[in-house]
């Protein structure tokens, strides 16, 4: 049920490898930003800065949704985006927790969380069992069979977290994931996420405006201007 230290909930070994971004040129429309960073497994890099500095675009580039205009992105030595290399998002194994949760509203929370597992070929029953474990961990087991578009904002965000983490990603990208949460719930969920990230032992990039979050979750900070 709840994962022991050093393993994910199902006891699957997770791949380790550092995220290395060199002179990456991220352009969206007329806007452009150049980024250079390294995140080791188990580290959480907080990406901060005023609105409009391209933080979400950087996450999109890391996820493979926005090709770079220059520079490289590599994870665990594997080149994701470079002059000759391109790995599409489906095979990067990057978990994304977007700002507006973007849950698949027509599916239940259970099916949302199981989505990544099933996409990678896990059988439905197994995937659902693992998804259930994650939902329990986040205190949402009683909402397992509810359609995702019926969840509250805070519940949706937690399911979105579970959905990304359950798929055993090699890198996790979080775009202000706790902003929609109730203050009382926020601390609990933050602690859960911190635990999970530590267990998964993967690099994580967290976009946030909250100094407290940077304080408690992040190991380093990079500010975009």
């Amino acid at each position: 049920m709840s994962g022991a230290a050093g393993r994910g909930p199902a006891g699957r070994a997770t791949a380790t490898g550092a995220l290395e971004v060199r002179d990456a040129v991220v352009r969206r429309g007329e806007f452009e930003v150049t980024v250079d960073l390294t995140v080791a497994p188990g580290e959480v890099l907080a990406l901060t800065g005023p609105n409009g500095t391209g933080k979400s675009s950087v996450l999109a580039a890391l996820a493979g949704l926005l090709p770079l205009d220059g520079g490289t992105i590599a994870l665990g030595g594997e080149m994701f985006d470079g002059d000759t290399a391109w790995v599409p998002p489906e095979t990067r194994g990057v978990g994304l927790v977007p700002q507006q949760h973007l849950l698949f509203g027509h599916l239940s929370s259970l099916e949302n969380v199981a989505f990544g597992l099933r996409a990678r070929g896990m059988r439905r029953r197994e995937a659902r069992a693992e998804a259930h474990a994650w939902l329990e961990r986040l205190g949402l087991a009683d909402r397992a069979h509810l359609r995702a578009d019926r969840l509250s904002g805070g519940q949706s965000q937690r399911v979105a977290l579970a959905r990304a983490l359950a798929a055993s990603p090699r890198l996790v990208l979080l775009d202000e994931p706790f902003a929609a949460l109730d203050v009382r719930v926020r601390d609990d969920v933050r602690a859960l996420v911190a635990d999970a990230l530590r267990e998964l032992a993967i690099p994580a990039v967290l976009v946030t405006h909250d100094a407290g979050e940077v304080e408690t979750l992040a190991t380093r900070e990079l500010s975009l201007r």
Partner: protein
Amino acid sequence: MTAAQGGRRPGQRARSGRPPLVLLVPGLAALIFLALPLLALLVRAPWSDLVEIVATGPVAQALWLSLRTATTATLVSLVLGVPLAWLLARGRLPGGGVVRALVTLPMVLPPVVGGVALLSLLGRRGLLGEHLDAWFGITIPFTTSAVVLAQTFVSLPFLVLSVDGALRGLDRRYEDVSATLGASRWTTFRRVTLPMVAPAVGAGAVLCFARALGEFGATITFAGNFPGTTRTMPIAIYLAMEQSPQAAIALSIVLVAISALVLILLRSRWLTALGSTT
């Protein structure tokens, strides 16, 4: 808006919402124009003989043929039309606007032109039909398949445009998230995209069915008229008009009833989806 807050009684708010006469009069005229002919049909119907006229073999035959072919045409339209809509909406076809205009063309063409076009392609001396006949001995005109082809030709665009509109209005970020979770493009289409446009697919399918059911010009030109094989309800009504308007009215009532039934079965949220995506 703010003027209608607090302190007003319900009656007052209703009064301030009365539409201006300049809109009300023509609007009501339009409504009456649409409703009166249908009403007249109901009034003039030979109600006492209705069952007798309708329950005859030839009529049941035409009705069954119409329902069968319209359903098949709708299914074909779904199988072919949804992928086309996807290609259109995602801009994967060269010549974008031209392709969309081409898809719209059968909707604006007089149906009989569609029939002539189909004959030019698949008739016995047609571009393809000539070879189909010579090499395989296959002739398409005057068969039930020809009816389905004619109906599909005129009704497929309705489905394509409905789904195309919905796909273009879709938030692509859901598909992005699905990709990051490791779903192949086909899995994303099947589990994320398609369910999200399901209302538009449903509404498009209903429109498609209704158009196929009522199709006449292309059918009689390309498929001909033979009881049980190609004599659909609209053709039966047309020929009935030649001899007995009463019979024609009776048959028309049957078609009106079926169309009304289809619309009732259509869930109201699909109609809303149709309104917002076309």
